[in-house]
């Protein structure tokens, strides 16, 4: 890893220069929420944000996207590839680690062309954060990004301690060499101290050791019914989750009834039709089964890997105030 320093007064110039790598998106405050929006100037961003409502997965697995057109008369399928380069500025470690989980599915096994292309066309610039009472990324080990970013900015009093994560990040740094300084001993001390303090500031904890076993053992537990009673089955948790990635596919037909396009859109395992097959049989007909399925899915992406990064969004944005960590503590029998 290479380390450099970006002085605070150079941030604006740096953000302007980033436009050479694509449209620049950063965390912007809208009402009481934060959202990654395209920015023109660095002062539009609220870099002290806790979490955006919609995670940055929206740049890579679009909420809705056209994947190809079809034309029956011509007898052809034509893929729709919208190549646009973007820079996502200010991603927190949890969201960077969530993208790494998504990569495992969308790039490592049978690569998805659309996702992979967008990942390759994006510059990821991480940004240090401070936990609030809903963050439990520390428990999952996702409160620090060791890779998955091109550049990572850690805030210092008078600038940013920058970690260079990739070749791409290195190119950006060298092309902006007039804005960047070498790190000094005092910067390193400040970085160390900030990281130490950050680790201490976590208040929410979740013991994940053996969680997969605990979930299996709690499969018939009454807690699923208890929380299903509260759950609206609205799917908000899926929408805001940085690792939820179920999608649905629909065909839209043009007026000639011979041509049209196939669209894929984010789906939700909390919705009733998620487990429904043709003929009317539903493999997860009740909220109890759907809620339990979501927690089991989050609890194990693969048998040895959790599918959650502890960002806290599902708890924060649940209209019924179902507390994710509380549910898992009950699964463990701690509450």
């Amino acid at each position, binding site marked *: 890893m290479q380390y450099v320093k970006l002085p605070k007064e150079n941030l604006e110039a740096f953000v302007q220069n980033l436009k050479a790598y694509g449209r620049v998106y950063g965390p912007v405050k809208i009402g009481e929420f934060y959202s990654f929006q395209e920015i023109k100037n660095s002062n539009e961003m609220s870099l002290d944000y806790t979490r955006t409502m919609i995670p940055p997965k929206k740049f890579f697995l679009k909420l809705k996207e056209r994947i190809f057109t079809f034309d029956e008369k011509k007898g052809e399928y034509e893929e729709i590839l919208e190549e646009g380069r973007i820079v996502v500025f200010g991603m927190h470690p949890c969201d960077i680690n969530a993208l790494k989980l998504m990569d495992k599915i969308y790039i490592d096994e049978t690569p998805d*062309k659309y996702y992979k292309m967008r990942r390759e066309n994006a510059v990821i610039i991480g940004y240090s954060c401070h936990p609030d009472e809903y963050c439990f990324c520390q428990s999952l080990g996702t409160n620090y990004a060791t890779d998955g970013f091109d550049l990572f900015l850690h805030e210092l009093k008078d600038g940013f301690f920058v970690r260079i994560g990739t070749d791409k990040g290195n190119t950006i740094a060298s092309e902006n060499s007039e804005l960047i300084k070498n790190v000094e001993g005092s910067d390193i001390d400040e970085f160390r101290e900030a990281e130490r303090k950050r680790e201490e500031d976590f208040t929410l904890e979740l013991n994940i050791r053996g969680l997969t076993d605990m979930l299996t053992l709690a499969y018939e537990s009454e807690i699923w019914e208890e929380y299903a009673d509260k759950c609206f089955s609205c799917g908000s948790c899926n929408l805001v989750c940085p690792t939820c990635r*179920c999608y649905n596919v629909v065909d839209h037909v043009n007026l000639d009834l011979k041509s049209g396009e196939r669209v894929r859109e984010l789906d939700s395992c909390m919705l009733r039709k998620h487990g429904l097959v043709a003929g009317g049989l539903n493999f997860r007909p009740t909220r109890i089964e759907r809620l339990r399925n979501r927690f089991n899915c989050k609890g194990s992406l693969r*048998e040895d890997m959790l599918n959650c990064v502890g960002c806290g969004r599902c708890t924060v944005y649940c209209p019924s105030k179902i507390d994710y960590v509380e549910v898992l503590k009950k699964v463990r029998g701690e509450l």
Partner: protein
Amino acid sequence: MENILLPNLAKIVRTEKMTAIEKFLQAELLDMKFAEKFDYKPGQFIEVSVMGVGEAPISICSIRTKKGLVDLCVRNVGRVTNAIHHLDVGSLVGIRGPYGNGFPMEEMEGSNLLLVAGGLGVAPLRSVLQYAIKNRAKYKGISVFYGIRTYDTMLFRDEFYNLLAEGDKLGCKFYLSYEDAKDKQCLSLEAEHSGMCMCGVVTKLFERIEISPEDTYAIICGPPIMYKFVVRELTKRNVPPEKIYMTLERRMKCGIGKCGHCIVGDGTSIKYVCKDGPVFTYWDALHTKGMI
């Protein structure tokens, strides 16, 4: 880079109405380069697209006999399958796949095979049967249980009549069960082939054969309710869970473990039916909750 979500065009070259709600279709891929590598194992499935309607996962019901050809038996139950039923020879469809693990035909070599099919479940098992008969010397006894409700719902009638009458020549014992005790055609079939055809649910056929549990593999496909009962009969006869294979149905939008609809299981065992299956053993089902 290959786009796995893009269907490959195929033309329907043969159709046959099999029952009131089931139709046989044969499709031929148009792109010879894709056809060349398009090979499939018994138990695999493909995603079939009808332009303007959508896509649905359909089991392949035969072994590959000619490059680029694929046989399907489709029940008209939903939007896409209804559209498939309206296709004629010459119509275009889109095909992705093949997907899924399929049955481990090599692992079963040297053993007896017992195929248990209920209703439309006979479609994927037909490819297992074709494979086993083509490679007859590799297997010991081959028995097929096929459960139907009435004569009208029986699929691949000519083929199975032939097996009822002359199965011995092919080294395959074929047993038929029917549920409607008043069905005249079934009654006459029973009169003709007593011992091989009887009234009742498919599990009743277990009365008719001896199973040697140490060298028998069971292969099951049918409506979800059937698995429990068939497994019970097999377990009673000491067939070990890892030698009971079954193929499952779920909602599937991608076929490659991404869309998330076919997920089953619990914390310690999460499976994607499309990618890790659709063929699973009863042992898988025992330690993966919600599978059957």
